[in-house]
């Protein structure tokens, strides 16, 4: 069992969702987050004073997957979320011990 987590630019969410749906992914969790990577946010100007806004808004997508489809999902997110510009985000995969469907109590791959 794998957890694929992606942090992407907010306006790319539609494309990523579409791409994952066409891959057959049946569910995902989306949250609005903020953070920064190498690009370190942006500068805003108010009455001549420059403010560094280092935390920029991002979207976090979490998808549960089995071992085989996880790398496919990663590839698809990287393809769909990429603009080629700085700040496109990151995707990472982590291992999970258990997944349980609350409604039925199913465990493991059956619960996906």
């Amino acid at each position, binding site marked *: 069992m794998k957890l694929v987590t992606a942090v992407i630019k907010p306006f790319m969410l539609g494309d990523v969702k579409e791409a994952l749906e066409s891959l057959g992914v049946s569910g995902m969790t989306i949250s609005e987050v903020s953070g920064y990577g190498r690009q370190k946010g942006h500068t805003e*100007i108010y009455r001549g*004073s420059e403010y560094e806004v280092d935390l920029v808004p991002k979207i976090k997508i979490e998808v549960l997957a089995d071992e085989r489809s996880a790398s496919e999902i990663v590839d698809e997110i990287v393809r769909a979320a990429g603009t080629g510009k700085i700040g496109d985000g990151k995707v990472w995969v982590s291992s999970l011990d258990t997944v349980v469907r609350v409604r039925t109590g199913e465990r493991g791959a059956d619960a996906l």
Partner: protein
Amino acid sequence: MLTSVLAAPAEEAGFDTGSIAWVLISAALVFLMTPALAFFYGGMVRAKHVLAMLMQNFAAIMIGAVVWVVIGFSLAFGDGNAFIGNLDFFGMTDPSQAIPGLEDLAVPPLVFAAFQMTFAIITLALVTGATADRWRFGAFVLFGVLWLTVIYAPLAHWVWSPSGWIAELGALDFAGGTVVHINAGVAGLAMAIVLGRRRGYGKDAMRGHSMPLVLLGAGLLWFGWFGFNAGSALGVNDGNTQLAAIAFINTAVAPAAAMAGWLGYEKLRHGSSTTLGAASGAVAGLVAITPCAGFVSPLAAIAIGLIAGVLCAASLGLKEKVKVDDALDVVAVHLIGGLWGSLAVGLFATSSINSVVTDDGLLVGGGAVLLGKQLLAVVAAMAFSFIGTFILGKLIGFLLPHRVDTETEITGLDQAMHSETAYEFGDSSRGASGRDLLPSAPSEKE
């Protein structure tokens, strides 16, 4: 003349109905400037302090209207001496009582008094930009009552009462460059010094929380300013028709040029033309044209505005140099803009626009006489307003604290002082329990 036939009842008393209507509407327009200023300033403070900012400006109406009717108008326009009026108009009890030196106005005395009241209100409100985010409400209210009485009213007397010494000197202020803008700018500076810097000043980002509010406020200020300036023609009969129109056009064109100046400066200096820059530029132009509006040609107004925009934008950095926390740049916009406008009268005023001008300005074929008078007037006004306000601020400080406590300043003045907050933000922590997402019923005190 035709107007005298149509306006028979008013004419019997020597007044002109068209003028009465125009000046009363102008008073209402200027009145709108104070709530407009509240939003102009309110958008520039952080979300946690916005209601306190709006409240001080609305309180300026509360204080100004009452003080003006009871004593302010009398001290400003009563006969008195060269420095202060008297108590002849105390409480405005006699509507027919003529204003000394202004007997030939086209409007009744109380119409003039009502118009002037709105000027007093907004001048007090303007001061609060310099002191944003740290002044206790009670101390501000006491300050407002005393400041309008001992600083604003005497200065208005100096400049606008025919018996005032600056008026007798021959220095000109069409709609309030000296009395309103220089006065408010200097008083704001003095109170910013008395109060001290905001906590975190220079370290924390203190950018405004709502640029849309700032632009809404600036737009409404501009709208009201037509009453401020064109209303200061004090009538629409005879030659004043043209005077009101000139002031009106100048009030449109000078801020437009100033906006261009400010935005151009910003683009060159910082790489972006910002919406706050557009709003600030317009206000700077409005400030600068205020003393000139009825004395200069529209082309001169464009020059005055353009220079005001660049000058005010360039003077934003002054406060960092002198280490005074003038929170919303009242000095850069109102003091510098007002100074430039008042001196511009000495450069551009011409008797071909207004017969009140006896010495033409330096750049329109006159000499330096008027410029010298303007300079003397602004220096005197600055000295009086700064020293007077500083002493008044210190004296009030002995009676009750000016500053909010540290916790209030950090958590927000709105909650601590007015038991309200401006906005209900989505708060992710409330999702921990579904019930928290439901609105809670208001509790009643038992």
